[in-house]
């Protein structure tokens, strides 16, 4: 029941407020009541005092008149029955005490009564009332006086003897002949007041208590459902949606509880719906993923197929030309030989036949070369055999390469410029394969400059620096058509070519890339369409770094001069 103790809780606040209110009301009521009763009690006493002293005055009339002390004493003795009369005194018109009665035998009282101050009041013609405190004897009294009067009226001798005197018809001349004085103790009054007060207090207390208890119960009736709602809401926030709330007996709370339950129920249903959708969604996602994967592998497959198709087209084209020669010349020669008679064959005829056969042989060789190149491509990807590696002079190899294609370059109006670094260290690798790479690069350059142009081949050394063990750099650059930016990422891809269909298999750069990577190096390209292209080949000098990475093309390395080897 921590809520009970919590200072800020609704319950506590309600309790405190209502209790304070009840207590306040009780207090006010109590005080009010008390005051009223006290006044009443006082008034009662006063009245009694008055009555008593009046009666006394009246009773003393005869005694005072006749100065009959015995009579007066008799009268006073009747007062002894009243306990709270402290004293009663009858004085004559001079103020002298005719008779007195003390309830309390205290010297102070007697003395005070006999004192002068006591006698002062005899002057008054009406009743006087004082509250006197007699500290010496610890008594508080109400001191009340009343004049003793007698009627002085003329009674004629005739009337003497008749006892009925109409008091009112005669103009009464009341003459004061003395004073009756009574002192009534206030003690009882005070007692009464106090006991009244106590009773009131008790009643108020009990009423308050009862009220508070009842209020507590009432508050509980209201708060408890709210408390339940709070707990329920907390549970729901935690995720438990099956908790329902009881309404209790109060209408509004019940409605609240019902509404709450409805809301919870709908929340629960929504959540179930969401979960179901989630599940369905996940199923759909799984399905889609599968579909996507299938589509992707299909795409890959069809790309492969198309690549193979392109390859096949390239091969067909490459082979069909020499085959054309072979078939044509074979048919030609056959025709001629079958038509002619042996004796009719001239020297010229024989020479022709020889030529035809020679052409056939040449073309057949060409077919062989083409097929061999094709196989080289498939092998280049997997070759890790380093047995054919040797140390060789890079510049010399490049010179050889240039020599091989010099004629072709001249035909194409290509101006070649060499810029080789002196005393390059020896490079370890397969010079034949590297020759293939640079042949490919240079011929590509030529193809990019159909009208002719400038071809530069440079070599330079990047020396070792700390952990970097140094490499050689070979640059092949041209002033040709350049490569479009949308193609540049693909140029090392197998079968990618911007040449017309059939011209080139698109394998050249791919093979070159593979060979360079096998040597532990990297090949990068920079190009500006319309201006030219530059290929940069880096070959490491430290043979231990040549781990022979796979020759497959990694698109991310295009354009980066990182020289980093990345396993693909």
């Amino acid at each position, binding site marked *: 029941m921590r809520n009970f103790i919590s200072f800020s809780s609704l319950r506590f606040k309600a309790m405190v407020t209502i209790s304070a209110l009840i207590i306040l009301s009780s207090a006010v009521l109590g005080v009010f009541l008390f005051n009223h009763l006290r006044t009443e009690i006082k008034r009662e006493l006063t009245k009694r005092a008055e009555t008593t002293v009046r009666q006394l005055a009246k009773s003393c009339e005869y005694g005072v008149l006749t100065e009959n002390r015995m009579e007066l004493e008799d009268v006073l003795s009747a007062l002894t029955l009243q306990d709270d009369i402290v004293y009663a005194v009858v004085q004559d018109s001079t103020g002298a005490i005719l008779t007195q009665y003390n309830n309390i035998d205290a010297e102070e009282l007697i003395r005070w009564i006999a004192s002068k101050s006591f006698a002062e009041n005899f002057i008054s013609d009406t009743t006087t009332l004082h509250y006197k405190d007699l500290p010496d004897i610890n008594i508080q009294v109400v001191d009340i006086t009343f004049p003793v009067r007698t009627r002085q009226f003329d009674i004629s001798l005739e009337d003497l003897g008749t006892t009925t005197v109409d008091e009112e018809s005669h103009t009464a001349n009341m003459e004061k002949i003395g004073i009756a004085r009574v002192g009534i103790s206030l003690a009882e009054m005070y007692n009464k007041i106090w006991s009244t007060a106590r009773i009131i207090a008790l009643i108020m207390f009990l009423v308050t208590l009862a009220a508070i208890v009842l209020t507590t119960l009432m508050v509980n009736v209201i708060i408890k459902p709210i408390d339940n709602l709070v707990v329920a809401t907390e549970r729901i926030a935690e995720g438990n949606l099956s908790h329902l709330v009881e309404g209790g007996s109060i209408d509004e709370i019940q409605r609240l509880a019902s509404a709450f339950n409805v809301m919870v129920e709908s929340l629960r249903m929504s959540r179930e719906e969401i979960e179901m959708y989630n599940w369905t969604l996940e199923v759909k996602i799984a399905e889609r993923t599968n579909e996507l994967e299938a589509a992707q592998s299909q795409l890959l497959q069809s790309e492969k197929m198309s690549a193979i198709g392109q390859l096949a*087209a390239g091969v*067909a*084209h490459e082979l*069909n*030309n*020499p*085959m*054309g*020669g*072979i*078939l*044509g*010349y074979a*048919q*030609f020669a056959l*025709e001629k030989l079958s038509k002619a008679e042996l004796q009719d064959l001239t020297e010229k005829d024989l020479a*022709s036949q020889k030529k*035809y056969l020679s*052409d056939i042989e*040449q*073309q057949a060789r060409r077919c062989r070369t083409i097929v061999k190149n094709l196989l080289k491509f498939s092998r280049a990807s997997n070759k890790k055999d380093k047995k054919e590696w040797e140390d060789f002079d890079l510049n010399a190899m490049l010179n050889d390469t240039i020599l091989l294609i010099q004629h072709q370059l001249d035909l194409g109006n290509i101006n070649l410029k060499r810029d080789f670094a002196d005393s390059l260290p020896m490079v370890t690798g397969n010079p034949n394969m590297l020759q293939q790479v640079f042949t490919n690069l240079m011929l590509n350059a030529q*193809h990019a400059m*159909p009208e002719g142009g400038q071809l530069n081949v440079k070599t330079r050394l990047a020396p070792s620096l700390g952990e970097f063990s140094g490499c050689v750099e070979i640059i092949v650059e041209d002033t040709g058509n350049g490569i479009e930016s949308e193609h540049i990422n693909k140029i090392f891809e197998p079968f990618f070519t911007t040449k*017309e*269909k*059939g*011209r080139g298999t698109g394998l050249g750069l791919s093979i070159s890339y593979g060979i360079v990577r096998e040597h532990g190096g990297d090949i990068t390209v920079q190009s500006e369409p319309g201006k030219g292209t530059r290929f940069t080949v880096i070959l490491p000098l430290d043979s231990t770094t040549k781990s022979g990475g796979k020759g497959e093309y990694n698109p991310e390395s295009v354009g980066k001069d990182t020289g980093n080897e990345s396993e693909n």
Partner: protein
Amino acid sequence: MTDSKRVKEILIVDDTEVIRQLLKDLLESEGYIVSCATDGVEALEMIKEMDFDLVFCDIHMPRKNGFDTFKESRDIAPGLPFVMTDSLPDQLAESAQEAGAVTCITKPFDIDDIRDCVSRAEQCKVKGDDVTGHIHRRQENKAPRS
């Protein structure tokens, strides 16, 4: 006066030497006068300067492919028959045929096919058909040439 109905001078356009050589040998042995061009640009130059009766033109060539060569030749020599050659079936060859080339043959070809092409070209000329559909008849404007 040349016999405008017979094929006399043939132009071979192909970037592969063996094909040029083969066709040259074959056709010269048949009695035709054969000239060669290594690509479309060269071919058009030659067509401008000389009178040919038939052109064997390869589709796939550097600088200018066979189809473009054919199309541009219509401006120079509208009635000149073209036989397209290619090393694999190609859309361009079809387009050329639609545009009016006589026919298309695929390498490697039988030499009899070559001969057929020549006869077909001759037939076109005999009928006086404009193989291209153009109105001009080149024969009438042709200067005599030995």
